[in-house]
């Protein structure tokens, strides 16, 4: 009874939130060709981002989270790339008129290519100005032979006016929020003269110059030490409140993002296995064994499971995958009977609503 | 397939455009091609004596006298008359009303300065040494008359010494003037210097105030081509009119062109194989005879030079005054050669195809060959190979030793380190061949490279030099030739005719074998061809 009520409340909340949806990804499929094989990098995912909220995508490397992000900006490299689905940004479908992709025929590839090439015009409009993307290694993301100021000016010119005074004002304004002590030094230096944290903050500064509505941070802290990374993420969240943009953080460390996220998507081998909604009380009730494993990792309890999980094959996602992507490593599997086991291995579970979130697991059928 | 054919069509179209746009030489100008770059414009500042320099010099400059190789006599050019005075004095009267290109009159001062310049500062030791040894002093009698005081030992015709180009006194007397002269030379010949570009293209225009018969060709242009193929391409596409020397094995290329004519002229070069008399075996007269008989010179000449030449019996070419047609070359007979070798005691003991000496050593000789590029080089290399083959047939092994010019000269002239050597000779008008056979030239650096020693010949040469009587001289030379014919110090191969390829619009083209353009005033142009 209580559970039912809780669900109703949640749906109500969701309804009210739906007005503020900024990005809505539906049934996105991304494939890549490897020789004669087709690798399914992203396997029909649905993601919804709300305005002003911080969303996190969690997953191991090769689970397709980076490809999802690149797809949003139309930056996917390789063939065939985005195959089907829709990405609605501010209720405009970025993947309009995507051709129907039936077989691995060469002509189909060509059609897709041509479509993707034409679509770049639309993507170019939103890049930087509407959606900003922050990369893993900030130092490598900065042009090595320009000073930060030159790069910032180039970005500013592209997105705003040619007014230098406004530019400097904006930079000084941002530098306060970004906690730069000596902004002059940063502006005049080259990327290889900066420390990792400084470079990352400088890059955040660059990406905020276009006043984006959505900032995507693709593992922004993976090359930094823990304390710096924590502060950077904190900074980003604060800035999102201050500058009024939505935040999408990609991470492989659940513990780091748990406290700041409004919702968490757990990726495994190209599909979402769990969708967590986190309310203000910090109640987190992961259902999927993989999420549980991640959580225990974050809390430092994963010693036993770690040994089991060694056998996860990284990035080897084929069209031939049947059943649950976590079937081989599932800890719940051993508690189930034989019947269940075969179901896990042969049929892929769909996302089902369970309590606050959604889980794709046969155990919760 | 259609695509490629389309491309080919485009190429053909481009070619048509280009071929029509080729500017054909024509009109009153003559363009001729040299293989080697021209030297310094001042004839006496060159370090080498090469024919390509003599050709353009004969257009710009003139000497007191000129030796006409066609009529075999001396011709007066700047000199009006000459008188052989007693006590080795030779007096020359200049023609009147003769001028340099810049309008100044030619006086006896010019002649004196020129000869002093050659003797004191000439860079060619052959010429300046010869003049220094022969001329004691030059005396000016008047503005148009000079007297040369000659040495006692001068036996040649004094006019031979006075064939040198005369340069203007006012342009060679000071160093500064000489520098400008080297850039813009001035002579008295039928053509004026106009320009010389850095790649060697020389432009000459007609001298309007020329004091003798004016030629009908208005302009002459020299182009430098590195090799015959380029040159003949240029000729066949009518971009140039004259090739001085077509190598004999390439004559067929020119022969089929309807626009051009081959003009043969006598060459004063003969090809010989020298036998080194220091070699124990080769000093044997019979062995030399066997080698000579064993080589089929006539076939070689026909095969590699199309028969355009003549097999020689002695050192003189048919064009020279001492040539004796009665001395016929030895006839080729392989069997006879084998017989001679058998008589000498050589036999093939071990059955390897080559003859052995009594001590068991193989009968083999080293043949020294200069491998630098030369005009007749290609053909001669074939001849040498044929020589090797035919020697193998009679049982003698020939080993080739190719050397660069300098090493070749060193071995030939100084070290005498060879058994046989392929040599080419050229003659000057004196036809003095004593330095090749006289025993006093056996010393290192001397011309008697084979160390040939024959008292009879030495005496004859001495008599030849001392005598002034032309008939006696011819008699001496004749007997020298007969002795040489019997002795076979050299295997005389042949002399090869030279051919010039000329555009057919030039007629009456009289060619001088050395200076080439000596008779340029006789050349005529048929317009519209």
């Amino acid at each position, binding site marked *: 009874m209580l559970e039912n009520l809780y669900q109703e409340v949640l749906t109500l909340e969701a309804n009210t939130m739906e007005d503020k949806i900024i990005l809505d990804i539906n049934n996105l499929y991304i494939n890549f060709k490897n020789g004669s094989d087709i690798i399914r990098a992203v396997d029909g995912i649905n993601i919804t981002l709300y305005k002003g909220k911080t969303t996190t995508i969690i997953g191991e490397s090769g689970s397709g989270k980076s490809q999802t992000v690149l797809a949003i900006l139309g930056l996917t490299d390789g063939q065939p790339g985005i195959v089907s689905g829709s990405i609605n940004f501010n209720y405009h479908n970025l993947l309009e008129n995507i051709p129907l992709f039936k077989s691995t025929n060469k002509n189909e590839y060509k059609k897709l290519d041509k479509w993707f090439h034409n679509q770049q015009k639309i993507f170019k409009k939103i890049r930087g100005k509407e959606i900003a993307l922050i990369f893993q290694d900030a130092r490598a993301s900065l042009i090595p032979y320009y000073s930060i100021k030159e790069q910032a000016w180039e970005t500013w010119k592209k997105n705003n006016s040619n007014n230098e005074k406004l530019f400097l004002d904006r930079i000084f304004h941002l530098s306060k929020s970004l906690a730069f002590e000596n902004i002059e030094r940063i502006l005049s230096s080259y990327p290889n003269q900066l420390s990792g944290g400084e470079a990352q903050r400088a890059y955040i500064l660059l990406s905020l110059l276009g006043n984006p509505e959505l900032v995507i941070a693709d593992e922004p802290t993976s090359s930094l030490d823990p304390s710096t990374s924590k502060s950077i993420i904190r900074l980003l969240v604060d800035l999102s409140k201050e500058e009024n943009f939505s935040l999408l953080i990609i991470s492989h460390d659940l513990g780091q993002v748990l406290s700041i996220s409004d919702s968490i998507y757990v990726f495994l081998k190209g599909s979402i296995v769990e969708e967590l909604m986190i309310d203000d009380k910090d109640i987190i009730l992961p259902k999927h064994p993989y999420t549980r494993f991640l959580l225990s990792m974050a809390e430092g309890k994963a010693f036993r499971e770690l040994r089991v999980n060694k056998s996860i094959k990284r990035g080897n996602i084929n069209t031939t995958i049947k059943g649950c992507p976590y079937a081989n490593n599932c800890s719940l599997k051993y508690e189930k009977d034989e019947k269940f086991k075969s179901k896990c291995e042969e049929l892929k579970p769909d996302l089902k609503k369970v309590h606050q979130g959604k889980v794709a697991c046969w155990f919760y059928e | 397939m259609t695509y490629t054919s389309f491309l080919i069509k485009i190429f053909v179209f481009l070619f048509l455009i280009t071929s029509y746009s080729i500017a054909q030489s024509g009109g009153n100008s003559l363009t001729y091609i040299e293989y080697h770059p021209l030297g310094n414009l001042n004839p006496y500042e060159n370090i080498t004596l090469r024919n390509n320099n003599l050709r353009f010099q004969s257009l710009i400059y003139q000497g007191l006298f000129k030796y006409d190789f066609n009529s075999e006599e001396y011709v007066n050019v700047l000199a009006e008359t000459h008188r052989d005075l007693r006590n080795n004095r030779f007096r020359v009267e200049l023609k009147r009303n003769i001028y340099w290109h810049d309008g100044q009159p030619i006086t006896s001062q010019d002649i004196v300065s020129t000869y002093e310049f050659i003797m004191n500062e000439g860079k060619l030791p052959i010429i300046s040494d010869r003049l220094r040894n022969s001329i004691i002093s030059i005396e000016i009698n008047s503005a148009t008359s000079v007297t040369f005081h000659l040495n006692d030992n001068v036996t040649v015709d004094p006019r031979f010494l006075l064939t040198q180009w005369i340069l203007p006194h006012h342009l060679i007397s000071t160093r500064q003037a000489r520098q400008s002269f080297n850039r813009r030379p001035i002579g008295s010949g039928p053509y004026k210097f106009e320009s010389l570009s850095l790649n060697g293209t020389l432009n000459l225009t007609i001298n309007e105030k020329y004091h003798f018969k004016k030629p009908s060709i208005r302009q002459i242009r020299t182009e430098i081509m590195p090799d*015959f*193929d380029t040159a*003949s*391409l240029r000729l*066949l596409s009518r971009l140039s009119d004259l090739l001085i020397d077509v190598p004999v*094995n*390439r004559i*067929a*290329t020119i*022969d*089929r062109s309807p626009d051009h004519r081959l003009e043969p002229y006598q060459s004063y070069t003969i090809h010989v194989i020298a036998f080194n008399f220091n070699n124990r075996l080769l000093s044997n007269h019979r062995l030399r005879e066997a080698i000579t008989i064993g080589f089929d010179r006539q076939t070689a000449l*026909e*095969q*590699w030079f199309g*028969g355009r030449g003549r097999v020689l019996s002695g050192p003189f070419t048919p064009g020279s005054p001492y040539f004796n047609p009665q001395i016929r070359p030895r006839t080729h007979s392989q069997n006879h050669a084998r017989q001679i070798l058998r008589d000498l005691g050589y036999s093939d003991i071990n059955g390897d195809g080559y003859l052995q000496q009594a001590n068991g050593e193989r009968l083999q000789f080293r043949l020294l060959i200069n*491998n630098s*590029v030369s005009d007749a080089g290609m053909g001669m*290399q*074939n001849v040498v*190979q044929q020589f*090797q083959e035919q020697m193998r047939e009679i049982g003698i092994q020939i080993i*080739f030793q*190719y*050397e*660069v010019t300098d*090493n070749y000269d060193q071995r030939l002239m100084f070290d005498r380190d060879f058994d046989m050597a392929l040599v080419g000779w050229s003659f000057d008008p004196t036809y003095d061949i004593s330095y090749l056979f006289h025993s006093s030239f056996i010393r290192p650096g001397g011309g008697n490279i084979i160390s040939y020693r024959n008292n009879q010949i030495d005496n004859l040469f001495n008599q030849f030099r001392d005598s002034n009587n032309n008939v006696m001289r011819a008699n001496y030379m004749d007997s020298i030739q007969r002795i040489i014919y019997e002795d076979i110090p050299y295997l005389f191969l042949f002399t090869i005719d030279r051919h010039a390829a000329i555009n057919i619009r030039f007629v009456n083209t009289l060619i001088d074998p050395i200076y080439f353009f000596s008779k340029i005033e006789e050349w005529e142009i048929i317009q519209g061809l």
Partner: protein
Amino acid sequence: MIKAVSSKLIFGLTILLTLVIAHIVNIFYPNMFNERSARNSPPSITLFQKLLYNNPIEEIEFISNWLFLEESDNEEVTRFERKYFLNAPNRTATVNKEYNYRPTNRSNNSVIYEVYSAPPNFEFRNQEFSWIPIKENVGAHTIILEAYDQESNKTFQIEYILYVNSSFLLFGSNNRGESVFGMIVKGASWTLVPGLIACFFGVILGLFFGAISGYYNNYFSNLIDNLSIVIESIPALIIIFLASVISGFNIYVIMIFVGIVLFPSNYENIKQTVISFKKSQFVESSKEIGFRNTTILWKDIIWSNCKTKIIKQISYCFVFSITIEITLSYLQIGIQPPNISWGMLLYEGRSMLLMGGYWLTVFPSMIIILTLSGFYFVGESLSRSLNPRS
């Protein structure tokens, strides 16, 4: 992948084997292809001729070989030709086959022909030639006919050249009547031995010094470093030109200099590899275990890691030395006659083009291309298959 590599390797090895066979043939049977044939004969592969050559050589030769010894104007000659020669004689004859020719003219029987000059065993009866050339007759023959015109009471001499073919004319013959195929076989001698010399001085010394100066970094390696930089900064062909003139066009000395020219790149390559491996973990660990420096350097670093590089360098060295040899011979400062090099064939071919002979350019260049690609393929595929990382 493996299939492609092996097919390349087989192709390359076949070419190398052919070269070795040609070399052996040249050593033991030097006169195998010495037989001469007609000058400038086209190759027996007439397909090429039809495809590439729009001015068949027969026509040109035919015109040029009719030399009318009687002096006459051009018009008269043409008239004469029409009058006295309706049919042209065959230009070529073949050994042991009967050759017949009967000159005919428009005004029958008014012209009487006589042989003025002809090769021995040549028969002329009843106004008709008949001749069976024997092996000794191979080559060019000048035949002069004397024609007596009864109408005009004039005698003319007419000369033409008859070629007797016999030799192995797979690729035609050159200006001297030598078989191009035979010359190509002879030229194959100058591919392997010069390459070996260049290899010794370039690759082997480069390997030795590169390894030593990479491993023991001392003043000696500094010296060699600077020397190699100096050599590298001089254009290779200048050194080789001068070397050729100094040595009097001795190909073996030239190849020593080719090796010297190739030395710097090989040296640098090996040195960098050794330096990069010297810093690696396994070298330090094997030092701690107690292996000697020489063992580590030559066995662990060079043998196990530089194999592929050395093989590539050797193949490049061969390619480079062959190229240099051909180039120098083309410029007439390389191999000298009577030896034959492919570059000389190309040089002859250039002048032959004017007379319409394409075969001296096309076939030698084809052979050169095949040889060079053979060396490339062998080097590439061997190094690929020996690479521990693939």
